[in-house]
């Protein structure tokens, strides 16, 4: 992943229309972000494993995870990430259409950093990405530093 970007975001999203929206709104909110996509859970697992295996590991700053993936349940991928020795501390935000409290609860159990339902309008989409970059993400980093110390 290139060093000219400040924030590396790895998105697991199978819907091309949703991927394009993420690109459009992220460019609007913060052009210094770089987005990489995986379209399936299997692809994500393989690519993330490979990034973590580099010397030194080349981890994304944030994983955006859709729960409804074509090949596997997003929660099982979350579980895999949290159990991976090198990926386990990477912030994971669930980005889903589900408003089901059971899904939200499960995401919390498997230690996602946050859960957001996909926004219904352009303004809300931008506002959410802005919030993730300026409020959510910095708070996770601080939390991790504290927990290490």
């Amino acid at each position, binding site marked *: 992943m290139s060093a000219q970007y400040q924030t590396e975001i790895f998105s697991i999203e199978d*819907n091309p229309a949703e991927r394009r*929206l993420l690109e459009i709104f992220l460019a609007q909110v913060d052009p210094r972000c770089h987005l990489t996509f995986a379209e399936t859970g299997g692809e994500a697992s393989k690519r993330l494993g490979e990034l973590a295996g580099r010397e030194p590991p080349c981890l994304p700053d944030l994983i955006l995870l859709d729960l409804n993936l074509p090949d596997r349940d997003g929660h099982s991928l979350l579980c895999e990430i949290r159990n991976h020795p090198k990926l386990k501390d990477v912030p994971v935000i669930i980005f889903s*259409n589900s408003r089901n409290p059971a899904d939200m609860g499960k995401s919390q159990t498997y230690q996602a950093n946050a859960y957001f339902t*996909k926004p*219904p*309008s*352009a303004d809300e989409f931008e506002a959410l990405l802005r919030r993730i970059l300026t409020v959510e993400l910095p708070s996770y980093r601080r939390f991790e530093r504290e927990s290490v110390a």
Partner: protein
Amino acid sequence: MKDFGDLISGVSQEDYKSLFQLAFGANSSLAIILQDPEGRVTFWNRGAECITGFRAEEMLGEFFGALFLPEDRTLKVPERELLEAAAKGYTENERWLHHKSDTRFWGSGINTCIRDESGRSLGYVKVFRDRTISKQTEEKINRINAELTHFIHLASHDLQEPLRMIGLYLELLKKRCGEKLDREANEFVEHAGNSARRLQTLIDDLLKYSQAGNEEESFAPADMSSIFDAVVDDLKPAVDGKKAIVTRQTMPILHVNAPQISEVFLNLLSNALKYSRAGVPPVILVDARPINSEWVFCVQDNGIGIPENQQQAIFGPFKRLHAKDRYAGTGLGLAICKKIIERHKGRIWLESSPGHGARFYFSLPRRQNE
């Protein structure tokens, strides 16, 4: 020992039994069973034989409780039934019972405790029918209904996602490419966007409708006044915009699903605001009265009213009385209300004549402490 025969003076025990046998013995669609005060069978007619599969000679002297399903016997249901009949005079009940062929049947009937002049129990008369077919039909309907509701829920959920994309891309088309499009193209985008939003509301309402029957959601005591006031607060822009006056009387605390009751008030108030007469500010009065075993709520308005021939149909799904461009809405609001109120074991109805406004009523059962 005293027996039922003692009830009719001058008739011997034996005469009485044959009289009983003559009167009820041959009836084959209705089970008629006599039990002594301990619950042992003393009379077993033809109907009881047909319905249970057990012959009179197999059952005389046995406890009727033996026909209860093992799980009911563990819970002492047979004993409780007799105790209740003894305490109240009778007990009505419906339950699965054991048939001799190792199948079960749905017995529905009444068990009456018979006492002599001094109040001493002489035993019980149990009368029941085999309602297995109607019970099975009922269970099948409930199952199909649950499947259908689940399907509506899933379908509306799956419809939401592509629709969200359509809405967002139409928005982007307008925002980012609007200048490149001519007036006609912009108008088309506008119409498509409006339709997408309408469809979104429709799907939201469908989801609410499918959830209105969801048994898992909880009931708890809630102050109806505060539920109502919160709804009025949410509707403040519409209330102010129409210069409407909304007044309510004191309402009780009831055992309800608060978000759902809030939805009912929201729909009824929105309708009262929406269907107002041109140039006449809406005046909406809401009260709650205890009537018999219910609380009856009334939402009264001074709007355009509802023609008599449409008052029944108005609670059906997708029922709209007006053109879409005159009054916005999905046609599901009152259907949602009806489903919610019925789930609360209440009723919903209306009184109205065109030009004189409408009064929407709904009732909620009172519990003993309310």
